[in-house]
């Protein structure tokens, strides 16, 4: 079980309190109706699925209820950092994890 740092509670809490929320930084287009079918399909269905550092969303659903973002290494399962929703992805060397 992972120990995840909630950036709002500022505490390490067990994975059981959290729910995974898919890839982070996928912004919903401001005007979806103005997008092409291809762009919209890309937005809906296509994700980066990297080997290595992955920016992803988690929600502290059984805690403060807030969504936040997390950089996790998909190979080692190591969480490199977590940060609040809306903040930019931290500049961390993709090889560092």
């Amino acid at each position: 079980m992972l120990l995840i740092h909630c950036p709002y509670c500022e505490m390490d809490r067990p994975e059981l309190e959290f729910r995974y929320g898919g890839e982070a930084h996928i912004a919903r287009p401001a005007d979806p109706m103005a997008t092409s079918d291809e762009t919209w399909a890309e937005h809906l269905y296509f994700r980066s699925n990297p080997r290595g550092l992955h920016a992803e969303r988690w929600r502290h659903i059984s805690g403060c209820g807030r969504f936040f973002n997390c950089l996790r290494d998909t190979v080692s399962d190591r969480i490199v950092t977590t940060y609040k929703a809306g903040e930019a992805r931290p500049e961390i060397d993709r090889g560092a994890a």
Partner: protein
Amino acid sequence: MSEHFRLSGATGRAVRFVFDGVTYQGREGDTLASALLANGVHLIGRSYKYHRPRGMLTAGAEEPNALVAVERGRGRMTPNLRATQIELYDGLVATSQNRWPSLAFDVGVINDVAGKFYSAGFYYKTFMGPKFAGTALWTRVFEPIVRYAAGLGARPTDPDPDRYAQFYAHCDVLVCGAGPAGLAAALAAARSGKDVILCDEQSEPGGSLLHETTATIDGRPARVWAEEGLAELKAAANVRVMARTQAFGWYAQNFVALSERVADHLAELPRGARERLWQVRAKRVVIATGAIERPIVFPGNDRPGVMLAEAGRIYLNRFGVKVGSRVVVVTAHDSAYRVALDLAAAGVTVAAIADVRSMPLRARMQEAEAAGIRVISSATVTGTKGRRRVSGVGIAQVGGDVVGGTDWIACDCLLMSGGWTPSVHLYSQSRGKVVWHEDRQMFLPGASVQDERSAGACRGSFTLEAALSEGDRAGAEAAGIETARPSFAITGEAGTEGGVLGRLPRRPGAKGKAFVDFQNDVKADDIELAVQEGMRSIEHVKRYTTTGMATDQGKTSNLNALAIAAGKLGRSIPQVGLTTFRQPYTPVTFGAFAGANRGDLFDPVRQTPIHSWAEENGAAFEDVGLWKRAWYFPKPGEDMHRAVLRECRQTRATAGIFDASTLGKIEVVGPDAAVFMEKLYTNPWAKLEPGRCRYGLMLNEAGFVMDDGVIARMADDRFHVTTTTGGAPRVLHHMEDYLQTEFPDLRVWLTSTTEQWAVIAVQGPKAREIVAPLVAGFDISKEAMPHMSIREGTVCGVPARVMRVSFTGELGFEINVPADHGRAVWEAVWAEGRKVDAVAYGTEAMHVMRAEKGYIIVGQETDGTVTPADLGLNWAVGKAKKDFVGKRSLVRPDMIVDGRKQLVGLLTEDPAIVLEEGAQITATAAPAAGTRALGHVTSSYASPALGRSIALAMVAGGRDRSGERLYVPMPGGAIAVTIVDPVFVDPKGERLDV
């Protein structure tokens, strides 16, 4: 029989136990294995496939052969326990497994004779074979026999009466294994004051020091050193010493799972838990899990009496048991010489040490010869004799590639040592990559991935001095101590060099089964055959032969299997690969994992405030998610069908009262509440006046229907949202997701109120008569309170929100009152209802009546691929809205294509036939194989209102097929149906307008 093989002068209280119906005597402190050996019993089981007689191979957790069942009363039968780990207590009852009718005479031994049919890939070749598979002869005759004959112990049939506890623990340093390295590590860490947990799988911590009688540490006998260290650890307040505790699994971030056996060794079961599952989060972990001795692969290496060499020493020095009276030692490793010397000193005849090495260490040979033991070098084993116990071993000498003549040596025990395999399991589970050391012929831990250090034999350091210093340093490092470390003065240590992998040299064409994996009965020949048949990777060899796939996960066999495969392939061991070490290290009971989560505690049960009334009034309940919902209210003598018929008819005749409290409810509040609702639901909300309700439809971003429900606007900034019973948490999560991450500027707050409101639905032409006398503060007349409106006031003096809504097609009210008042208000409503002969109805009648009206249920008519248009619900989609979640997807090409499945009604030609929900629909009565169905039945009932069956279905292009005749093919023949409008009752909605 009474302990003929026990050393004289053995202390320990005598205890009696039963094995296979025979009573024996053993000693307190014995394992079942040591006690049986004390009585000269080696035969303890039959092997998995060939039913060959088998005895104890080891003295520990790695035991592949000696699996037994222990029974201690009803529900307390545990199969597949290792006799080498079962602690003896007075009255222990154990039985052997996998034999019929008895251990000594076993019919299944025919498998041994017929062995050629059980070669590598047997399961794939036979079970998948075209000739046999699926035929009656196979499924009824052969398969049951094979499955019965090849197997492990039987499962218990009674519920387990024991309790299992689960704990979380946190510590600075966790030390796994309490042998010399682990003890030294724990002592070093403990002296720093850090929180330390030291766990060991055995009844007594100490590991190899427990049977070390020759070596000294800092001038004290090794065992005394261990006892003193343990005493210090047990006395320290910052240390928890856990015996009988297996660290069985390593998970992310130094999360290590331990299984503690609390009760199994006690004659009297304690009142507490039988086992404890510990989930430990450790800042640092010291892995000190030791090494496992390897068997040698030669023909007949599996007979009872053939054991690992060190096991012979453990039984002798720790349990005072001689494993035989005339022993031959076959070894490739120096440590077995000490075994021979100890046995000889105890009066056991050691007929010979056959060393497979051409040049055994001079000093070792001299020690042996000084004790009068003959040493044969360059030895190989050509075979063994004896049926239920080894009686002789054939030794030959190897010169170059030539195997010489066999010299048969009589013995009643054959001890073997192929060397030692470091236990890298936990390290590997921590995602560390083991590294092959060609010079030492072993896999050892590489770089650390997590905060752990391996110390001692598990990282290939076999000398006592190395184990102690490495342990000490690892413990100090884990505790953050940087001072210089002490050294340890050692004398009298056993040898630590040598080893062999794979099968011993043999004459060309030599026969005899040479076992690699004892538990799964995999022979050296099987592995070579697998390679010959094209398996290249060890992962394929493993699955084809099943080597290493038994409950012992190949602890004694994996390296030999790998070496044989590599030899046959002519490749190096790392090229062939190493199979994954998986949790758990040894089997863990289901009880430990389940803990308290069983029976009533397995899943929480949700009950409405009106549940007790339904129970008192004879309701049958159905599970809806975690909820218990009243399903129907049968009168005496009524079955479900009759009860539902009555409930529906009476509701439409006068009124019915229904507990709708399980409906999900979310309060959406804030200055931007309407803007938010516009985004999350397809419908327009901006212009909905306070006091009015609207049917809301929620889509996911892909445009598919995800939930629906009636939504009331309480005020400009407040909505009372209802969701489906099962959808409430999902909808709230979805709302929070968009609110927090896509529209964070909106000033909106979301609160789940599902459990705060009890909801009483009153439906039927007399509904207003029932509700009116209870209401205060507002007018519920037709004019004052139209369909789809909401009013706040009191009901029975309790603050209430009353909606005029309908899920039956009849005049209806839904009374929301605070949950605590739910039952009282329900009873008042019921009392009014009785005056007009109203019924209480359950979820089944609710389903029937809504289907008669063509109202959908999300999750029944929909399956995650259905759009509003498919359901004929385009009227609920706000055309003028610029955006809402899912809107863009509704115009994707696939969503507007012709021929999508659409909601329709179905009428069977025979009105008595009620279709099966989920049944497929086709254009012809007997479609050709491979024909795609046009759609499927989603809801189907006997309709009391129509006096015939009705169904809802999703059918391709369904709305254009009105009147068309289609078919529902069923095993008894196709059923003809006609497509109709999905609204069967009151299509104009006149009954609502009263």
